């Protein structure tokens, strides 16, 4: 367990970066700041054992390979996965979903099949399936949610009965911060033999997950939203898919035998990791995960929750503010708007008042259509966010409103 101050001390952002001059970063759902330990892990690799992995007989390659496979072990352990081979390193959540969609398209998905997604999906978990559906006369079905974003269970069950080839859903909405009840959804899906893919890009940074218990078929996330480096992510495969998901990216390292006519691929994670992986990125990612375990993400989660609750309490006292999914528990993010004013204007003023938030559609245009807005202002917290940060934000917002409310939009 670590205090907020301990945690902040571990991030150069606060001592050397913009935080040193009081700039408040509340765009953590887009990407997080990185602790020293992550930068060090990468620098150490580049300085002391910079080599390509898995094919070299020399000591640099061997120590890099050992470090890389250790990082796989660390990652597996972080996600409660006993067999590290189920963790495939990718360049990020987006690549993970694309690899998966292309792999499934080769065997599992049949023309005309239905894929179910929620209205909350990030484009990363929407467009690859939409592409597939367009090309194969497939149908995209919507996870049945009430107007209050609760699952409509009987409707979901009848969908499952009528045949769904895949359910691919986000664990947490990157726009609204609400969490879907994965456990119950997966349970019901299993009863009907529907494979489930979880987009954990947001959840993984805020809550421990135990995949050996949760048992999704697939799960994706990005390191850079988890205090790790850019250009790194994972695709988790359940045991039943490992070695059976068709390969959708081919190249060096994934093979056991290649001839002009025919290629045999290796088993295990390497099968899906063709080409030189982002070695430094993977080592940095493992360093981030170790830090999160050391700080205990479960404790951080409670603290983040308090920040978000406090934020929501403050916001709903301002009459011009509309909070989306108001009153619902939120993880990581909260979205709002200022009545009659454009999110872009609000965000621009907040930046001038030393606050970084994100404005726009957050790559969730279907959700924007659903909410009937062109965009929102999103505040997203991280493990280093303090109540002072929230107060600074509220102050800046109030000053912003003074400017904006002079004008009707």
């Amino acid at each position, binding site marked *: 367990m670590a205090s907020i101050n301990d945690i902040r001390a571990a991030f150069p952002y606060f001592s050397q970066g913009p935080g040193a001059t009081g700039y408040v970063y509340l765009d953590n759902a887009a990407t997080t700041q990185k602790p020293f330990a992550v930068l060090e892990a990468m620098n150490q690799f580049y300085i002391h054992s910079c080599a390509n992995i898995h094919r070299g007989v020399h000591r640099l390659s061997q120590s890099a390979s050992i470090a890389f496979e250790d990082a796989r072990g660390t990652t597996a352990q972080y996600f409660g996965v006993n067999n590290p081979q189920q963790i495939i390193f990718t360049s990020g959540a987006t690549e993970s979903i694309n690899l998966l969609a292309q792999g499934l398209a080769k065997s599992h998905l049949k023309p005309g099949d239905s894929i179910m997604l929620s209205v909350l999906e990030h484009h990363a978990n929407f467009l690859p399936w939409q592409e597939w559906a367009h090309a194969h006369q497939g149908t995209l079905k919507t996870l049945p949610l009430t107007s209050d974003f609760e699952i409509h269970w009987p409707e979901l069950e009848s969908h499952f009965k009528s045949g769904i080839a895949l359910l691919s859903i986000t664990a947490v909405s990157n726009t609204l911060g609400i969490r879907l009840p994965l456990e119950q959804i997966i349970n019901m899906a299993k009863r009907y033999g529907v494979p489930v893919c979880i987009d954990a890009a947001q959840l993984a940074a805020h809550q421990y997950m135990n995949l050996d218990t949760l048992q999704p078929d697939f799960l994706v996330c990005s390191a850079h939203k988890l205090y790790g480096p850019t250009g790194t992510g994972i695709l988790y495969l359940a045991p039943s898919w490992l070695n059976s998901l068709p390969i959708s990216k081919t190249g060096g390292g994934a093979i056991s035998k290649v001839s002009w006519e025919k290629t045999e691929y290796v088993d295990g994670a390497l099968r899906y990791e063709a080409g030189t992986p982002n070695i430094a990125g993977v080592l940095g990612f493992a360093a981030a995960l170790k830090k999160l375990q050391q700080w205990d993400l479960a404790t951080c989660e409670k603290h983040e929750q308090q920040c978000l609750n406090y934020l929501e309490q403050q916001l709903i006292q301002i009459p011009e503010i509309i909070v989306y999914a108001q009153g619902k528990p939120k993880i990581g993010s909260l979205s709002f708007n200022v009545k009659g*004013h*454009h*999110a*872009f*204007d609000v965000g*621009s*003023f907040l930046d*001038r008042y030393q606050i970084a938030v994100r*404005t*726009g559609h957050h790559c969730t245009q279907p959700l924007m259509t659903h909410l009937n807005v*062109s*965009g929102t202002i999103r505040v997203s917290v991280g493990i280093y966010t303090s109540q002072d940060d929230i107060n600074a934000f509220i102050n800046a917002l109030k000053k912003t409103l003074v*400017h*904006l409310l002079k*004008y009707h*939009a």
Partner: protein
Amino acid sequence: MPETPELIAETIVQEFSEFGDDWTLKYEFLMEQAIHLEPFPDTYRLDAFLIPGCQSQVWLAVERTENRYHFFADSDALITKGMIALLLRVVQDQTAAAISATSFDYITKIGFHNQLSPTRANGLRSMIQRIKQTVV
């Protein structure tokens, strides 16, 4: 006949220089520019007149009289609308040659170079591009 784009740009730089480093005054002034923008004709409020790549919606239409170009613009964000108002001030009713030759460096001079960033959030670059394209 309007002044040359250079002269207008100089005036704008002059106007902003009065605010010194006070960005709140600059932003207020920018938003006033928006308020003074000529009303956008409803007939042009069509997708065809939308500029892609902005976080806010930006409409831009042009009418040609003899060899001069008259622009109409609008946006649902005030700051964006102010920015495009600032752009139009210099090119309004100018000739194709003058518009093509216009430098938008004054945006940097008045301290809004951030707005020229390649992020797709504000789209100032796209606006400038569209203005220049409409006259070639």
